[in-house]
Structure formats: C-alpha cells, structure tokens
C-alpha cells in the first residue's frame, strides 16, 4: 500500500479547497439555473461529486478521495453553506473511496471513476432520504436522482478523467505521483 506522505496530504487538501472555491462559483450558476430549468440544474449537479474522484485520479493513493471530499465540503461549510455539507462530503467521499478500494486502487479508467461518482450520488441520495426527500412522489425521485446520477457519471467519469489527462501534459503530476519502475530503469541505461 502506498502511504500518504505529508506532501500528498497537503496537495489533497489543497485540491479539495480549490474545488470548494470552484463549487462556490458553480453554485451561483446553479442558483440562476435552478428555477428556470429544473432538468438542466440536475444535469450540472455532478460537479458536487467530482472532488473526491478527481483527487484520487490525480494522486492515485488510498484515502485521497475521502480526504479531498471532506476538505471541499469544509470549504463550502466555511463559505456559508453550513455544517451539514460536511455530512454530505463525508458520505460522498467514503462512497467514492469504497469504489476505488473495490478496484484495489489499481484502476484509473473512466468506468471506475464514473462508478465512483455514481456511488457518491447514491450516498448523498441516502442522506437526502433521511433528511426528508423520501416523501417525494416516486416519479419525481426517479427523475431527480436519475438525472443526477447521469450527471455524476459524466462529471466524474468523463470530465474528471479528461482534466486529469490535460494536467498530466502540464507536468505537475510528476511532482506527486510515485515514481514508476520504468523511470528508474531509464536511469540505468
């Protein structure tokens, strides 16, 4: 198991916090879209599930999805969304983490990342049910959370993977990821 070093931890939390800031701006967009287009609003909801899987795809170590998700939520909490978002951050991060653990922390494909997003969505759905949304009509529940799950897959499976690939090209990932055996063997040549 690759353990988190202090550098990894600081970067993970930093990513969570930057995502928290982005989510703050995204939230403005969400609020504008909210009343006019209920369908579109559910479709951009996936942004809220992106932080954990994104951090994991970038750093590729166990624990990053959960920690980044909590960090993102705590920024949201301090930015005025209230302490309850921490509960959501925790369960969403945990769900994503469990998916990556099930893939033994060895797969970084769109499918696994997307599934992690959908798992986060399912976890937040469970909390929503407890909160009070269980009293919604069944069709409304299916439409609302169905769209949200699709959006979660698009944001975490496709967008997050593509952005991480773009980041790999900038070279920053070489600062954080464990050095490959291949790279060591290149020194021998």
């Amino acid at each position, binding site marked *: 198991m690759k353990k988190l070093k202090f*550098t990894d931890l600081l970067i993970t939390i930093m990513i969570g*916090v930057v995502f928290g800031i982005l989510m703050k*701006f995204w939230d403005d967009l969400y609020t504008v879209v909210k009343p006019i287009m209920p369908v579109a609003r559910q479709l951009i909801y996936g942004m809220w599930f992106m932080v954990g899987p994104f951090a994991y795809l970038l750093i590729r170590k166990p624990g990053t999805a959960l920690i980044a998700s909590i*960090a993102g939520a705590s920024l949201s*909490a301090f930015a005025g969304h209230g302490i309850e978002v921490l509960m959501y951050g925790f369960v969403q991060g945990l769900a994503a983490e469990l998916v990556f653990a099930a893939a033994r922390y060895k797969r970084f494909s769109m499918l696994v990342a997307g599934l992690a997003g959908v798992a986060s969505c399912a976890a937040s759905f469970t909390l929503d049910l407890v909160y009070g949304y269980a*009293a919604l*009509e069944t069709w409304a529940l299916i439409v609302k959370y169905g769209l949200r799950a699709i959006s979660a897959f698009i944001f975490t499976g496709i967008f997050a993977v*593509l952005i991480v690939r773009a980041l790999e090209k900038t070279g920053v990932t070489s600062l954080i990821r464990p050095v490959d055996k291949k790279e060591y063997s290149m020194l021998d040549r």
Partner: protein
Amino acid sequence: MLAWFTPERKTWLFQVNPALKFVVFFALLLITLFNQNFPFAVWQAVFYGMLFYLFSGYSIRKLALLSIPLLISFLSSALTLIMFGKGDTVLWQWYLIKISEESIQHGLLLGSKSLSFGFVGFTFLLTIQPVLFFYAMMQQFRMPSKYAYSFIASFRLIPAVTEELQIRRNALKVRNIQFSRGVKGVYERLQMYTVPLFAESIRRAQRIAVAMEAKQYQMGAARTYYYTTHYSRMDTVFVIVMITVIATALSLAFI
C-alpha cells in the same frame, strides 16, 4: 469582505472552545437530520433561531441580510415537497403538481430542518475564527497536526486562488473565447478554468509542503502551539444550555 464579519459585541458564544462548539453543533445537526417528528423539528428551529438572532452578536441589519438565504432555502426545500410530495388527501392538483395535506406537512418538516441547519451553521460561522478552530481541534480533540496544518495552509491560500480565477476569467474574456453549446460547452468551460488553476495550486502546495519539511516540521512529534486553546467555565455553560435546549424541545414536542 472580512471586515463585514466583525461582530457588534462578543457574546458568551465567542468564549466557548471552537472545537467543542463544532462537535456539539454537529451532534445537534445529526439529531435534526434523523428526526422525523414535525413538532420537534419546529421547536428545534425556534430555539436555534433564538441562538442565531440573540447571541451571535451581530447587528439586526446584518442578521436580516443573512436571513435571506435561509428563507430561500426554506422555501425551495419546502415547496419542492409540497408540490411534488406523496399524499392521499389531495387539496389541489394541476398537471404534475399535486398538493395534499401530507405533502404540506412533509414540506414544512423539511423546511424546519433546513432552517435549523441554517441557524446552527451561521451561528457557528459567525462566532468562530477558522484558524483557532483548527488549533483547538489539535489541542482538545487530538486531530493529527498534519491534517490541521494542511487545512490552515490551504485556507490561507484561498485569496490567491480566487484572484487567479479572476485573472483567468479576464484573460479568457480578453481573448474573446467562445464556448460551444450544451455538454461540450460545460466541459470546455471547466477545462479552461480548472487546468491552469489546479496546475498552479498543486505546484504551490508542493512547494509549501517541501518548505515545511525543510523547516523541520514533524508530523508525529509532540509539539507546542503558537495559539493555545483551553476549556473554560463557559464551555460547561454552553453544554448545559444545549442539553436544556434539546430537552425542552423534546418535552414541548412530545408532552
């Protein structure tokens, strides 16, 4: 912006240990989350409202301003359930919208819960300093220092990140970037903003971590703190008040 968040007077809530305050408030919110009883939810909202309006130490004008988002979240969560909630005793129906007695009750339950969340959340935010909160988490609740300092360091960088975001926005505007419509446009937007932002943040975070380790910052070692936080008599008062609040709300709801 930060100047706005200076209270008019420092109430007793300011003297409570920030970490203890967080743990107690978090426990209260868990009670709110899992509660399904309507009167209990209403009484909780009433008491937390009193906490917010009487003891947060901010002027009426600011509290009124802060009430606007609370009202919006109350309305949006309650109305969703009122209009699209389950229920048999139908009062009014129009296409997909169906208002029934049950849905109104469920809507008001959810609305009260969201009010409680808002009141407690704001009361917490208005009466703590984030940095002291993390120091207290380390000293009173044994949060590992590497987590606490990572949070503090990241929080310190927020202004730099928002400034960068602003610069990026202007840069894109100057170059007259046009985004596609639909899903592709959402991705283009996301990529244009996040890639430079993350590249820079990661570099910065890595540099800070290296610098901290170079200055002999040790993760596991016993340490002293620049800000020391303690428990005081006010903490006992706080815990007693909160237990009384919950007990009173329970007895008002169930007796």
